[in-house]
């Protein structure tokens, strides 16, 4: 069954582009993608642009409003996601633990609904 992996971290905790740490992180994510693909579990995934690029939209009574910023101002922000197909939660947890950001951030693991 499919799980979504929502990757969160404090924005200043992520390595800055141009630094060797950033290059290491890119390489680590590349390795993760290859491993997940080789195992046949990778269905989707992408990094998100920074939370400063976010816009939150609501539609109430037919009126659509757009506001600057992410859904919630939190210390750790959503930075990326994966969708992997796993046998059970233990397999999903194992994959989540390998996501590079899990080493200093948090990965929320949630099953997708079976829309058959």
């Amino acid at each position, binding site marked *: *069954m499919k799980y979504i992996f929502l990757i969160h971290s404090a924005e200043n905790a992520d390595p800055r582009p141009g630094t060797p740490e950033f290059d290491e992180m890119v390489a680590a994510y590349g390795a993760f993608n290859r491993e997940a693909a080789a195992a046949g579990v990778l269905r989707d995934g992408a990094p998100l642009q920074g939370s400063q690029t976010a816009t939150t939209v609501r539609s109430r009574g037919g009126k659509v409003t757009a506001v600057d910023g992410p859904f919630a101002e939190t210390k750790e922000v959503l930075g990326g996601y994966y969708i992997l197909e*796993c046998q*059970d939660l233990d397999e999903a947890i194992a994959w989540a633990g390998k996501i590079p950001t899990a080493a200093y951030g948090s990965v929320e693991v949630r099953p997708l609904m079976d829309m058959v």
Partner: protein
Amino acid sequence: MTGIAAQNAQSVIEAIVKAEWGRVISTLTSICRDFDVAEEALADAVLIALRVWPVKGVPGSPRGWLLTTARRRAIDRFRREARAGAAGDELAALQRLEAQEASDEAGQPIPDERLKLIFTCCHPALSLNARVALTLRTVGGISTPEIARAFVVSDEAMAQRLVRAKAKIRAAHIPYAVPGADLWPERLRAVLAVIYLVFNEGYAATSGAELIRQDLCKEAIRLGEILQHLLPSEAEVRGLLALMLLHDARQPARCGALGELMTLETQDRALWNRPQIKRGLTLLIGALARGYVGPYQVQAAISAVHSEAASFGHTDWSEIRLLYEKLYDLQPSPVVALNAAVATSFIEGPAAGLSVLAGLEDGGALTAYGPFHAARADMHRRAGQGTKARKAYKIAVRMTENEAEKNFLRARLTELPVT
């Protein structure tokens, strides 16, 4: 049958059902792959037992009878659902049930699936409250209202907790399995933590506690026994069981004639359950022999040192301090450091103990911890520092929520010389 005979029959049957519940439900859950289906099938079987056994007598193998009857109910249910157009999952479950029925009739032994049940109930993805409730309900076979009473919540709240826990297992696909080698140490620790939590819930409630709280200690010990039977080579499993048996052996002495709290200092040691202490010690020695010394074994060893002292004055505090230091290496915590300081106060005198406490206080971790102030008060008292003792006892009284402990501390306050 007369009213009394009927009631006896009911109690006898309920006791049998409770004893066999974990074993039967773990097998049913393994086959049905659904906690609710398994529970409903077994609950139906129990209703039948309550009707039939008083008349026909208890069967030679109550476990076999309950499993066969529950399995039958589950098969009938899945067949009905199959006729109504069931999904693949249910048909697969039906096949597994029918296969087990056939193998059972052919005389093949039914494997004990309780380990899968225990590890699933104690999965870290479930909240701690959920783990405790589910373990007591499914492994312990304790009714939801009884669990609710033990944890001082309403029946509905506890029922909801169980519903949500089972829903999470289903929705997130928590596997019904024994963890593999790489996850084993962490998952076993989670199981032991649940059992120990149940024990502490029962043990921390002191004198004058309702029987239900004492029963919690017994339930935790029972769960510990089951785990020890299933995992005979795990040192910490044996260690936890030893710890619980040793602590519990003192229960008869913990309550004074007026229902007041009796500490290790004042307990009548003649009331301690010596056979249980002996059993605890045997288990502990067996655990230590396995060559892996974990925190539960160390705590059991500390309890053993107390248990072996003829009186409070004979306590081997040096040994106890050594053990707390060992425990600190394994689980550094301010509470462990506090206990080591108490040992120091008995080895080198209260002034030395107070000096250690002053060092601990700097960290700030213990300021919100009632027993820290109680320990400090006691050391001041023993050092003849009445004013400081009075101040510390007052803080300790304010911080404790337990009535019996409050009374104990207040009594100590009144015993202080008037300044």
